[in-house]
């Protein structure tokens, strides 16, 4: 019962409130009126026809796919590396977790400096190594701004991926590998034939959680670029924020967050279906 009350108060109520809000006309003029008109799907229509919506959706998808791909592959590489026992492996793995403890705003400031076109360390390196003639204004160029914020987010996400995958690796009994080696399976074959299938539950959870965290990202991008220049790094949550709190179109802002929720809902459902398939094997 207490759990039920908790879920109703903390989860159902805000979701329901947001859903109702998205069907009402709530903007600057009507915010303080005691009753608000229901306008059906008008807010959704407004959001979808908003010129920024297609860009935001595209950016959200690119950002999420790109971040997850790199976080996952690099995280997995690190997890495999640290599963080998070599001196200081534990310490090094621990030190990677530090990035998880840095507040997002601090990360955004750090990367703004690293990526700065005039004084940035990354440009310094690129020019010294003669990859580029003059510094790239990473966050000030619509062609590179999204890549810039992705870089920061990948950096944040790697240790999280590594940690979950590493704990999955330790659950695999080492004697299976020995048996496979005796049967003549090489390292690559052992990785594809044994490690990946046995890691499946960890991979599923890390990808699902990664999607949820990445798709609804707001603070990091807002602090690094504010979604700019010219919406080149605007993702759906930033669009929703701007609609609600810059333009005071609260109904449309609610609609935008609900569109975001639909995507999250699909991914979580997919996870539940996939993980349900796993269970009978046990």
């Amino acid at each position, binding site marked *: 019962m207490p759990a039920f009350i908790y879920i109703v108060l903390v989860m159902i109520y805000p979701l329901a409130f947001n859903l109702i809000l998205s069907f009402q006309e709530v903007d*600057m*003029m009507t*915010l*303080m009126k005691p009753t608000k008109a229901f306008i059906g799907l008008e807010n959704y229509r407004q959001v979808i026809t908003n010129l920024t919506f297609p860009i935001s959706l595209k950016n959200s998808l690119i950002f999420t796919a790109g971040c997850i791909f790199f976080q996952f592959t690099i995280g997995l590489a690190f997890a495999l590396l640290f599963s080998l026992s070599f001196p200081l492996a534990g310490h090094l793995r621990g030190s990677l977790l530090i990035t998880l403890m840095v507040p997002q705003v601090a990360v955004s400031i750090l990367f703004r400096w690293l990526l*700065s*076109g*005039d*004084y940035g360390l990354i440009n310094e390196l690129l020019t010294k190594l003669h990859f580029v003639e003059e510094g790239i*204004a990473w*966050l*000030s*160029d*619509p062609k590179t701004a999204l890549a810039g914020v992705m870089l920061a987010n990948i950096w944040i996400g790697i240790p999280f991926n590594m940690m979950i995958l590493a704990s999955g690796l330790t659950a695999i009994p080492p004697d299976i590998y020995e048996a496979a080696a005796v049967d003549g399976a090489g390292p690559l074959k052992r990785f594809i034939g044994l490690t990946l299938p046995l890691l499946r539950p960890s991979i599923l959870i890390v990808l699902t959680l990664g999607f949820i965290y990445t798709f609804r990202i707001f603070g990091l991008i*807002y602090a690094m*670029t*504010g*979604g*700019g*220049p*010219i*919406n080149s790094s605007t993702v759906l949550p930033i669009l929703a924020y701007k609609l*609600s*709190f*810059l*333009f*005071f179109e*609260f109904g449309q802002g609610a609609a935008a967050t609900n569109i975001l929720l639909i995507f999250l809902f699909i991914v979580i459902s997919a996870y539940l279906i996939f993980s349900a398939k796993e269970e009978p094997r046990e």
Partner: protein
Amino acid sequence: MKKTRRCVGFFLSIAISFLLVSGAYGLETVEMWSYVPEGNYLYTAIDIFNKSQNQVKVVAKNIPFGELKRQVAIAVAAGEPPDFMMIDNPDHASFTVMGAYTDITDRIANWEYSGEDFFPGPWQSTVWENRGYGIPIETNTLALFYNVDMFKEAGLDPNRPPTTWEELTSYAAKLTKPGVYGLSVSAIGTEEGTFQWLPFLWQNGVDIEDLDNPRAVEALELWVNWMKKGYVSKEIVSMDQWSGVRVQFVNEGAAMMVNGPWCLPAMGEVNFKVALLPGRVEKASAMGGVNFAFFKGKNIDAVWEFIEWVYQPDNLEELAYKWGCLPVLKKVAETSPHWSDTVGKVFIEQMKYARPRGPHPKWPQISEAIYTALQEALLGVKTSTQALKDAAKKIEKLI
């Protein structure tokens, strides 16, 4: 004789205890929200006020700039706003139209000051449909800062700053060298970008209703040309005025900058001077600042005690000076000892040409159309003509 003295003593002690009791019971607490950061003299001033009497206590809450409007909107929707707030003046009309603020027209009519006593721009930003919804407390405007040493090095006379667009551009060209940009402005995709470019639009004799006018295109091409020639950094599209433009100038990464008086307390070791923004068809600058606004259904009588105190000339003068902004009352600004030096005089003079943004409840959308056009042209996504044509279309729908 002795009897009367005892009598006086008796009544006096009753009077004192009555005062003490009424003081303790009569203390009314009012809450104010603002984005003014901790450590600003504003909080010292509020402290002084709180200690100066025992009727009203002002409790100030500081909310980061980007968060303030959001929090206020939520508080208003929930019916739990503070008693009063400080609002950035282009946003004032939005909240007035929302119905959040109390109409104080009648209260002002019985006050010692009227709208005439204030600088017209700041005052105008509090008015909506001929009714008063607030009082300006801080105002500022943009001027041209320039590095005296760099002027000398480039063979320019530091006592003769640029006065026309052509001069500004040619000075910027002369001052640009490896590691140093001739000029710095903010073209960031926020209100600040709009704020910085509008003076140039106005200087060319047009306003936001005529963005598809060739004169507007000229004003935008001026900036685009600076960027193409490398007189300004490519980063100006993501540089704000305080931590971007000011920092670049203070670290001698730019020889001139367009910026406001709030920089004055934080100019480091740079040897700089300030001049009026160069003009073209006419002189113009943008007016910024914050206003007090009072929420409906809250304790405005108590807040008014604070208002009466803060607008006393001495208190206002000190507050404005230590805050790094101009006193909003004309008489105080003109007689203030702190604004009589060369830099101060320039800002007071510039204030005469400072124009408000809006007031319009849809200002945030109008502003977005403007800074988007600015960025599109600077980044070469669209031509200046096309960018402004698109912005004009958006603004036409809003106005």
